[in-house]
């Protein structure tokens, strides 16, 4: 694994999807569909192959030497040397440098691998859409953006990738732009992302301006490896970002998390994600399950040297994560739109990941990201099969009885549901239990956060099996549901592949020699993320695991009791606790609160500027000056006799005065 090879591989990985985007964009829809159907998924799968090559090349190296940085191009540099009377100054110097290490390769594998599967699926899903080419242009652009985000070794290009992802997601959410709701959802997502971007900008500024080297000199760097090398422990007397837990490093941690929260749909920047379900379903699978929304998890894990120095910021991250996980879980229990249930489920699961990286269980968080990418993409794509076959109807109340008509989709969706719920042997079980038991050992305010986290288990299995029961079991409740048919192979095979992955990937983190804390997956990431500061003892860990599994199975049991057997009334909660039901059904009223607190005041302010300030104050002041001048002009009108000699006389008089004054002043 030498630098040249990595340079070439990185260029291929980034270049292929970019080329796919450019070809589609520049031909403006004139390329035949057949070509695009091969090219769109082809470039992503090509990038996947190149990533695999990178991965293998990396595995050949010793574990301690798996990080490499290559510069793709020099972006800009404001430093000047000392010449021409100018003092040499170090300025802002940003390159597009790429970091290949276990963490970025893991992300790249998921982005191009799961992304490639979703691209193949999309060929079937949007086959009849007139904007076929535009769809693949944006999908490829999204892959490029996401790769820039995770591969960048420069704070600036991290931000660039961060914003490009926001744009690509906007373009895909608003893909069906003739629908007003899609346009609004796209705008909401984009603006929320820009709020996060600004947080990231400010965090980056603080790092750039304040990071000091070991001798206390200001480094003025945006190079991530340099930053991490200098933030670490032992360097914070003279250097780094000040003392552990200091105001500076805490501020940086929180500002970066604003960006992470916007991208990962965490409270308080979470409201865009459910609306984003306006986009085509493969988009939801790619963006709102597998990749984009996990960028926040990646960011915190990547910046863990900073969060380790900022316990307060990390605590905020953990609390926001667990809070969002619980809130989204509660909301998911009462929604009727199949995609929105999965969206809230995503929000909830990502909340758990954010909790994990907040408490310091970085590799547990990344493992949950990895398994979640498989089973959540599976759930979305299987839901996509249902929606496609029901002619874009997403309400589970009009479904029913689909298990007979769409047998394979039903099986795959159920596998996804089992994996999501954390039922043993499926992927989610391994990742979620590791995450929660780590949280038990590491979390602030132990064990309260763990209690909340483990109670999310029961919510999770309840809301997802509620969908399974209502949508797939029983009798068809609509014309469309009666005529539902199984999806074509191009949409079924990717779903089946994901179902296989969702079943087996969990075993990656098992050390078959016993329950050792370091396992295959964690040891792969260990050079970047380190080992957790603490792990629970075998007894505590085993008990926690048992409680978790019991709660997960309990959730399924409740669904069975409510929807299967009918021993518990469906109206129990709505009747006994109507406030809780309303709170959940209305998504805790966050949309309404934000409309009242931000949207309406800004719009009112803007209207006020247009209607009152501009015509009255600004133009009014101008008019006042104009009137004053006009009055003066009237007074002076008598001087304007119209005779040239009068003017000449006045001119000479004042010229004389001017000259005299000039002469007096100078002598």
């Amino acid at each position, binding site marked *: 694994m030498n630098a040249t090879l990595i340079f070439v591989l990185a260029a291929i990985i980034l270049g292929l999807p970019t080329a796919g985007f450019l070809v589609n964009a520049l031909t403006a829809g004139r390329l035949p569909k057949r070509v695009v159907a091969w090219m769109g998924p082809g470039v992503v799968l090509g990038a996947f192959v190149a990533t695999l090559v990178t991965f293998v090349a990396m595995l050949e190296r010793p574990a301690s030497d798996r990080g490499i940085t290559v510069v793709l191009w020099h972006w800009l540099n404001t430093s000047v040397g000392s010449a021409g009377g100018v003092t040499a100054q170090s*300025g802002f110097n940003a390159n597009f440098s790429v970091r290949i290490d276990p963490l970025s390769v893991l992300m790249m594998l998921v982005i191009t691998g799961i992304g490639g599967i979703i691209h193949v699926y999309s060929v079937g899903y949007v086959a009849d859409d007139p904007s076929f080419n535009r769809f693949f242009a944006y999908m490829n652009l999204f892959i490029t953006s996401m790769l820039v985000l995770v591969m960048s070794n420069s704070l600036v290009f991290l*931000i*660039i990738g961060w*914003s490009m992802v926001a744009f690509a997601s906007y373009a895909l959410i608003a893909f069906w*732009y003739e629908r007003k709701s899609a346009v609004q959802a796209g705008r909401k997502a984009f603006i929320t992302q820009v709020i996060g971007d600004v947080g990231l900008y400010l965090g980056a500024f603080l790092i750039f301006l304040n990071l000091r080297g070991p001798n206390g000199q200001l480094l003025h760097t945006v190079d991530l490896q340099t930053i991490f090398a200098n933030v670490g422990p032992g360097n914070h007397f003279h250097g780094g970002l000040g003392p552990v837990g200091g105001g500076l490093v805490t501020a940086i941690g929180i500002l970066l998390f604003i960006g992470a929260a916007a991208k990962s749909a965490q409270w308080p920047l979470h409201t865009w994600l459910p609306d984003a379900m306006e986009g085509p379903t493969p988009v939801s699978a790619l963006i709102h399950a597998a990749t984009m929304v996990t960028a926040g998890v990646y960011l915190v894990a990547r910046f863990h040297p900073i969060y380790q120095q900022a316990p307060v910021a990390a605590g905020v991250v953990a609390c926001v994560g667990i809070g969002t996980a619980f809130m989204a879980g509660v909301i998911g229990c009462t929604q009727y739109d199949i995609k929105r249930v999965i969206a809230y489920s995503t929000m909830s699961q990502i909340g758990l990941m954010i909790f994990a990286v907040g408490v310091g269980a970085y590799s547990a968080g990344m493992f949950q990201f990895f398994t979640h990418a498989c089973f959540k993409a599976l759930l979305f794509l299987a839901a996509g099969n249902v929606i496609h076959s029901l002619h874009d109807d997403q309400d589970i109340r009009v479904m029913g009885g689909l298990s007979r008509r769409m047998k394979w989709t039903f099986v795959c969706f159920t596998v996804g549901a089992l994996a999501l719920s954390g039922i043993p042997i499926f992927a989610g079980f391994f990742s979620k239990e590791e995450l929660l038991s780590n949280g038990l050992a590491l979390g602030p305010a132990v064990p309260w956060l763990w209690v909340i986290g483990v109670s999310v288990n029961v919510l999770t299995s309840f809301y997802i099996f509620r969908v399974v029961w209502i949508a797939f079991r029983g009798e068809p409740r609509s014309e469309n549901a009666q005529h539902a048919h199984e999806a074509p192979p191009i949409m079924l095979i990717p779903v089946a592949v994901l179902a296989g992955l969702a079943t087996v990937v969990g075993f990656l983190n098992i050390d078959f020699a016993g329950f050792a804390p370091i396992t295959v997956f964690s040891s792969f990431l260990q050079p970047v993320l380190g080992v957790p500061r603490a792990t629970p003892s075998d007894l505590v860990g085993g008990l926690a695991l048992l409680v978790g599994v019991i709660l997960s199975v309990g959730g399924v049991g409740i669904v069975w009791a409510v929807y299967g057997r009918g021993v518990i009334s469906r109206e129990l909660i709505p009747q006994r606790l109507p406030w809780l039901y309303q709170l959940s059904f209305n998504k805790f009223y966050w949309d309404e609160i934000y409309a009242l607190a931000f949207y309406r005041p800004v719009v009112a302010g*803007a209207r006020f500027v247009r209607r009152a300030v501009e015509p009255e104050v600004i133009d009014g002041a101008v008019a006042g000056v104009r009137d004053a001048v006009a009055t003066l002009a009237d007074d002076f009108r008598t001087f304007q006799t119209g005779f040239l000699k009068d003017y000449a006389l006045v001119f000479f008089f004042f010229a004389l005065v001017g000259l005299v004054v000039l002469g007096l002043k100078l002598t």
Partner: protein
Amino acid sequence: MNWPILAVLLLVPLAGGLVLVGLPGTRPRMIRGILIAVTALTFGLTCVLLVAYLAVPPSSASRLTGTANGQSLSQVHSPVTFQFQEQVAWLHTSSSLSQFHPAFNEGNNAFNQSGPPPINFSFHLGVDGLSVWLIALAGLLFLVAAVMLSRKEARLKPFAVLMLLSEVGVLGVLTSLDLVLFYFFWEAALVPLYFLMIGWGDEQRGRAALKFIIYTVAGSLFMLLAIIGVYFVTGAQTGVYTFDVPTLIAAQSFVATTHQTTFSLFGHSFPALNPQDWLFLAFALAFAIKVPLFPFHSWLPDAYTSGRTPFLVFFAGIVSKLGAFGFIRYNLTLFPQASHFFQPLMMGLGVASILYGALAALAQTDVKRTVAYASISHLGFVVLGIFTLNVEGLNGSIIQMVNHGIVIAALFICVGVFEARFATRSLRELGGMAKAMPVMAGMFLVVALAGLGMPLLNSFVGEFLILLGAFQVSPAWAVVAALGVILACWYMLRMYQGLTQGPLLAPGGGEPDSVVAQAVRRIGRIDLGPVEIVVLAPLVALMIFIGVYPGPIIHYSRFSAAQYVQAADRGTGVGAAGRAVSTVPGQETAR
């Protein structure tokens, strides 16, 4: 460069304008051809100038002695250095100087003279890393405007002549290195612009033009007084009586640190303004009106709304940059202490422009007015960057001036397309046009994204550097300015989505398809025509190129930016020392 390229640059459009005057107005095809040829030649010359400038390594010492005059006072002491200087004596009152001697303009002879000071001014031209980019931008935008100009335009000949004359004025402002000459070009650009504004456009144009001319003339008057004031104040303090800009800049190094005096009122003491503060304010007023900065912007929305698209391309694209250029070239270098004294005021006005323009843009239903207010908001960033008085901010401002010129010109072209097709600019009446005009929608998308500061497009580079610069001075201002980025996303999406997305709407509430059909019947097409693609494509390509690879522009402007920062730091006790490459911990704590 062995030939006077800057003088030729000014002469070409002037000569082109004179040739056009002699042509009969009944030959529109020929007039348009000559106009395009002349602007293309001018653009070619600006490119030659740019390449010649880039050929000189930015930090090489030859920049200091590269002029024919060799060592001179201005070049020894001026912290800002100029390339390709050309100088011809114009008017002088001192008989002790041998007429037309090359050394005449050096300023040396103005030293130690008793008696009344000589009134010298000369035809002195030169460029630096700031102006060379703006000159290239001006060349490009005038060419774009010339190509845009339809030969069916009413009264084509006067339009073409006035356009070339305003190009002379603009290029003159950017190249002149003598205050009197600068003022001459400043006013000379104004006159044809006024006639262009009053002669072409919608029915509101008369009012708009009047507002514009009153505003700018008022600003110019103060500037004229201040130019005379600079002459005497600098002369009184240093003995150098001259209008020569490099000499004046150099002379400021000899101005002793003026301690801020105070006066007391009602028992409180307030800082009193010294003469340089007043001169700073007079210059700043003229430039603030030209930019325009809030609250001096009232002429802009009217002027931008009523103008014709080709006019707006160069008017919005380059003329507004002259104000920002003036801030850097004159306010920072001639009044360094005042620049620091007024830094909070100017940064505050910049931030106010950002937010006010963004809020106003958010509420408009007329898309041209949206673009106009967006322009105010974007230029607020430029002024904010200038008065950070540090390298990041100033570099950001320089590149942002170029970016803004490209983006605003493209925005007006896009909006103009809708106006030409549907005879309306109302967001209420238009919508869903992406379906009818996909190429237009694609180009417009890139332009709108550039306008909202999307990374890998040009504006991001400038805004990021400006915010970084502002953050160093005052994190609070940077945070408030960053709100402008969020609002920019909002109003740009509101405009872009309003025009192109949603269900297809038709002006006048008719059947959408029939309105599209009508537009096709009227102008033969609905999507972009060849001319529109030819003018938009290079602008879009530039947005992407600068966004992906801004290195070259920064590389060839950073040296001048550092010089301007150092020029502004003179006599203020602050300096680049905190940022110097080799530093020890003790020095760093000063920052």
